[in-house]
């Protein structure tokens, strides 16, 4: 039986992986089975660091062959090692799921004995969980670089989501900090999975789809010198060319001492700004070129939408009663939910500022960029607007910081207001 100590080691080793989302899959339960997937995802608890627990996130083993500089489980680190058997994982998942502690399993592993052997063990676990334990809840499986394609594709048939972590935003940094991984060892399997999903889509395959909730990836921010502009260009390509569901950013925390690594963490603000820009790219119709030059970093003082609006004051103010949706989405302070509310409400009556306030649309920032029935209540000069927005931003900074690790429930995924 699994004891608390092993669970502790394998959880501690897995916890720096950011992704915990359980969304995107509509897996249904079968007769005699246990569990299903809820498309919007469900958070089951929150830890004192403010992150959500949706999945049981553990490593199968933390005894790693590789020696990646930033990783607490690297070969040369002096840490306690442990592993867990496929049956122990299945038992734990089923019993946690029955008590409604979790929405499913997020299984990952250090690379032990060989990439193929590791992937095989992961694959065996998920197949067992589905076929022997009849589990139909959510499974997110981490892919092992250099593992045989056949193993990866077999696992993909049984799980809801897979992810290969890109780890670092450029090949150069990967070479320096994770010398045993190459860009190809990470990108090629991602491309294969993306092609398999495309095949299912083209052929309208309904049941037995590979990874119905798609792929995600994660990169560490601030352990290497890439600019936000470079990072966001990579992000945009991952979304638009590879069809990824999410890119997670993990601001570097110095848990490991190394001459190749910075001694200070990257800070949450940078991570937060990247998530804001990421949201703008996915849900607000922005292109990365509008947000950030290739060698530049995002503005720390104000969010990327505000910064964009300040650079494009000639487009504002817009009239809320006539502006198209795409333009409303670009008004600082109006989020996706607010924009849709406006579009619906104005069909029945022309809106004034009073209406907006009653509809819970916060006009503190928006007032500088909109008119209501031709009336304008914002500041006239660009300088005054900038001052007001910066003040506003500073006051809200503490609040805003909390957004980044927010649960990936459908509502916030659709709206993610900025």
């Amino acid at each position: 039986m699994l004891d608390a100590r092993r669970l502790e080691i394998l959880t501690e080793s897995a916890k720096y992986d950011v992704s915990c989302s359980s969304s995107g899959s509509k897996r249904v339960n079968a007769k005699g089975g246990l569990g299903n997937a809820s498309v919007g995802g469900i958070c089951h608890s929150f830890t004192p660091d403010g992150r959500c627990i949706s999945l049981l996130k553990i490593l199968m083993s933390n005894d790693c062959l590789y020696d990646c500089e930033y990783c607490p489980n690297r070969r040369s680190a002096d840490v306690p090692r442990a592993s867990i058997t496929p049956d122990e994982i299945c038992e734990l998942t089923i019993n946690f799921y029955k008590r409604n502690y979790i929405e499913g399993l997020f299984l990952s592993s250090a690379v032990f004995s060989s990439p193929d052997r590791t992937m095989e063990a992961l694959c065996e676990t998920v197949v067992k969980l589905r076929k022997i334990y009849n589990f139909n809840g959510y499974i997110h499986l981490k892919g092992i670089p250099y593992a045989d394609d056949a193993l990866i594709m077999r696992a993909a048939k049984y799980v809801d989501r897979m992810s290969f972590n890109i780890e670092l935003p450029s090949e150069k940094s990967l070479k320096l900090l994770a010398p045993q991984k190459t860009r190809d060892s990470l990108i090629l399997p991602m491309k294969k999975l993306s092609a398999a999903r495309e095949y299912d889509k083209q052929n309208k395959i309904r049941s037995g789809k590979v990874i119905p909730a798609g792929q995600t990836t994660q990169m560490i921010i601030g352990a290497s010198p890439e600019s936000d502009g470079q990072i966001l260009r990579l992000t945009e390509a991952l979304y638009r060319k590879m069809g990824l569901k999410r890119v997670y950013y993990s601001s570097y925390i110095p848990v490991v001492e190394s001459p190749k690594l910075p001694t200070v963490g990257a800070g949450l603000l940078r991570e937060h700004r990247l998530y804001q820009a990421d949201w703008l790219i996915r849900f607000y119709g922005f292109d990365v070129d509008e947000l950030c030059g290739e060698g530049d970093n995002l503005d720390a003082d104000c969010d990327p939408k505000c910064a964009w609006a300040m650079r494009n004051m000639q487009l504002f103010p817009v009239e809320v009663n006539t502006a198209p949706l795409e333009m409303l989405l670009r008004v600082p302070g109006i989020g996706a939910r607010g924009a849709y509310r406006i579009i619906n409400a104005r069909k029945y009556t022309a809106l004034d500022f009073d209406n907006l306030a009653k509809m819970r649309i916060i006009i503190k920032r928006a007032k500088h960029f909109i008119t209501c029935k031709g009336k304008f209540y914002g500041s006239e000069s660009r300088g005054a607007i900038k001052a007001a927005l910066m003040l506003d931003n500073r006051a809200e900074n503490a609040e805003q910081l909390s957004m980044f690790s927010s649960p990936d429930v459908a509502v916030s995924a659709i709206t993610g207001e900025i």
Partner: protein
Amino acid sequence: MIYYVVDGSEDCFYTAVFDAYRQKDAIITSESNLQTELESRIVEVTADAEKAERVRKKLRQLDGGAENDIHLALRSCDPLRENTAFGYIRLIIEKGGPVRKMLAHPVVLEMSDITGKVTGELHKLKGFLRFMENAQGVLYAPFSPDNDITDLIAPHFAERFKNQRFVIHDVRRKIAALYDGEQIILTSVDSAEIYLSEYEKYFEDLWKQYYKSVNIASRPHEKQMKGYMPVRYWKFLPEKQR
């Protein structure tokens, strides 16, 4: 002012709507201890299936989704829920069709607020509900939601658990949803005595260990934790007990 006092059932509410519709200054409420003005009148409403059905039929003709909106609104803990739903029905009839997108209208906004709170809590508790297994293998989950959502939350778990029997018990309203592996029955339950399975403590302790280990202690953010997981729900979460 005429107060139409209802018993909390939907039939009774729709009956009250039927009776009160032509009165200009009518208020529908299920509050038992009313504070009314001197000149006001109180009417105790008894459910009348025929009247209720006539209102429902009219609503269905005008807006297929209205009944569900009202079904949700009446679960709310808001003391004005019946009257808000009444105003919503009046507006639908006045406009002759769906009004849910007229968000600049105060009644629609109020309706969307209270139904939003009900569905919001429903979603949250799908995550925060905690089952324990008894010696017979039945899962038991006590909870105390703000809104009356026991029968709304039970189908979610029935779908997940299929053959697994369970009980969801609203300890404050003293009602429970019982699921025997086939169907859900709603019943009143005063208190429940539970003999836990021998494995219960083992898994609960593992869960507490997991909760402790997965936290990144160097990045405390209690405020956010409490924002997403309000303290009033902690009572039934094993990971928040010592």
